[in-house]
């Protein structure tokens, strides 16, 4: 199988990089732990109480969250761009982040919810409901669901919800105060339970997305061609929307609206896939995005921990400062594979 050596190598090296980052993420921070002690703790040998505590109750959940949320945003970004056939589509386009933001602000201002756990379920419910509404609206009318209608319906609903959200935070300073920290995006301060709670959503979404991958390649040729190749465009789109809803909803609810990650990562993945000799093939693009996005997210999180020790800068902020220049340099260097 000479054909697959390039991409397999690519995925292998990305995977290795990710494992290294996970170890660093467990080792570095306000308290630095040597790598051998990290490995010992992970394999079940207690080094000492503090080290074990820091790793198991603080850094392991944080790293796992980075992995899960990053992979979710990467996959759903690639999926969104494939479904709308638009390079400007981000996973927030279905109204997911607007719905989550609106639900959080409404829960704070109208229902008086203040605990972090309350937030997550409201955000998730808001995200899921909103994307269902966008999908239903885009399907209405005689022409059915087209990529442009999906994108524009998403934009319309998103701006409607952000308008209301902005109105609430302008009137109620207390809501603004909490909202602005969620909005900057961070991996910090989550417990292992939260990570376990979003894991089923991420797993289900990823599986659906991977199952759609071959059909997405046919869909890129247009609905008519895809139909004649034996695909069912409407079914693929419905499955894709469900996957995006689960993935982005879970990620955004916990770490904040870091949707730009999902916008940029697929572009990088396409460049890498072309370099590896497979072209924009979604069977490779989705796994590559799933590895790339957590790499970027964990790097940003690490940098945020180390830059201002013992304080932190939110990962959501640093992703842009690390990823942005890299992305621009990439765009300048390579001939880009257009969608």
């Amino acid at each position, binding site marked *: 199988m000479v054909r697959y050596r390039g991409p397999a190598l690519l995925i292998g090296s990305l995977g290795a990089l990710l494992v290294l980052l996970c170890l660093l993420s467990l080792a570095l921070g306000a308290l630095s732990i040597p790598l051998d002690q990290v490995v010992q703790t992970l394999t079940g040998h207690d080094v000492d109480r503090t080290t074990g505590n820091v790793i198991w109750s603080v850094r392991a959940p944080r790293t796992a969250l980075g992995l899960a949320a990053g992979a979710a945003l990467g996959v759903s970004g690639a999926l969104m761009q494939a479904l709308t056939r*638009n*390079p*400007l*589509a981000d996973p927030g386009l279905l109204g997911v982040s607007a719905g989550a933001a609106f639900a959080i602000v409404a829960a704070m201002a109208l229902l008086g919810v203040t605990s972090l756990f309350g937030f997550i379920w409201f955000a998730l419910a808001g995200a899921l409901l909103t994307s269902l509404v966008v999908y239903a*609206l*885009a399907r*209405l*009318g*005689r*022409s059915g669901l*087209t*990529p*442009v*209608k999906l*994108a*524009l*319906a998403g*934009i*319309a*609903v998103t*701006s*409607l919800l*952000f*308008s*209301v959200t*902005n*109105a609430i*935070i*302008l009137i109620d*300073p207390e809501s*603004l*105060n909490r909202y*602005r*920290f969620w*909005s*900057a*995006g961070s991996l910090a301060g989550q417990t292992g339970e939260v990570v376990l709670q979003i894991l089923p959503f991420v797993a289900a979404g990823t599986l659906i997305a991977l199952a759609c991958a071959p059909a997405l390649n046919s869909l890129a040729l247009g609905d008519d061609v895809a139909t004649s190749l034996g695909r069912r465009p409407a079914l693929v789109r419905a499955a894709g929307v469900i996957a995006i809803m689960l993935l982005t909803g879970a990620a955004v609810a916990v770490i904040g609206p870091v949707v*730009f990650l999902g*916008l*940029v990562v697929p*572009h990088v993945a396409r460049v890498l896939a072309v370099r590896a000799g497979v072209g924009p093939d979604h069977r490779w693009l989705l796994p590559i995005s799933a590895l790339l996005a957590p790499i970027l997210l964990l790097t940003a999180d690490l940098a945020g921990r180390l830059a201002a020790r013992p304080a932190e*800068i*939110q990962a*959501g*902020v*640093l*992703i*842009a*400062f690390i*990823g*942005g*220049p890299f*992305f*621009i340099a990439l*765009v*300048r260097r390579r001939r*880009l594979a*257009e969608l």
Partner: protein
Amino acid sequence: MTYFRLAVPPISGVFRPRMLALCLLLAAAAFLAFCSVVAVGDYPITLPEVVQALAGVGDPGTLLIVRELRLPRALAGLLVGLAFGVSGALFQTMARNPMASPDVIGLTQGSGTAVVAAITLGWTGGLSVQAIGLLGGLATALLVYALAWKRGTTGYRIILVGIGVSWICTSATDWLIARGGLFQAQAAVGWLVGSLNGRDWNAVLPLALACAVLLPCALLLGRQLRTLQLGDDVAAGLGTRVQLVRFGVLLAGVGLIAFGTAAGGPIAFVALAAPQIAQRLAGAAWPPALASGLTGALVVLAADLTGARLIPNMELPVGIVTGVLGAPVLLWLLIRANRAGSGG
């Protein structure tokens, strides 16, 4: 649609009755909304009085209120809407993408970062908020164009570089808001939403001058732009000077947005939605520039009017209402479209 050719004067062109009727209708509606914005307030003025006062007839008190208080705000709304709509149409045509808007190349975000930095860090350098927003936007646009330049530019590369730059700007803004004090965060969010409250002649005059120069340029370039839609190579083959037209379009679009944002803040949704609404109303295959501008003006003025009236004793900023008013219109047009072509 009919083609015509005149012997004297020697001109030829296309006559589109639907486009003409649409533009006239939109202009009439925008004028009505404009007069209503002037008429509404603590001191009520009737619509006929407004029209008279605009022509310079009426009692001195009414004239003073209209000229000094109400007219600048209404003009700001009209011009901001026109600028955003036309600029959005240019960008969407150039990028051949209905999701493209000046926001995409980071202009608005750059303005936002500059203004929020000035508010939260308390450093203004003696400049007004308007000037800071304008400089921030123009600097960002210049940066994007320079970064995308590599033996010429392509529309796609400009957009992708713009995505990167706007991403950095958005994050910087979020970070500034999160680390500043709550009071400053409120002021920052207030500006980011976009508002026309209390705009005086100082805010309107720069925008009016910019519109006087840039709007005609933009409308003329809109025609050249249509060949660009066929792709760079075909356009060059048809005799369009691709790099020059693209640079002109960027310059006009960026200028309009930068001045509009400086006057009214980054009023959401107008640049993106107005061209799409106009395109569907006109039944056209591309966003028509003039109709988009008029739609934008109508949306902003109607939103300002609604915002002032919706909740008693509280003026909602126009940026909040544009989303609430514009979104249902766009959704309705999307759903109503019965052909794949007009639905997108």
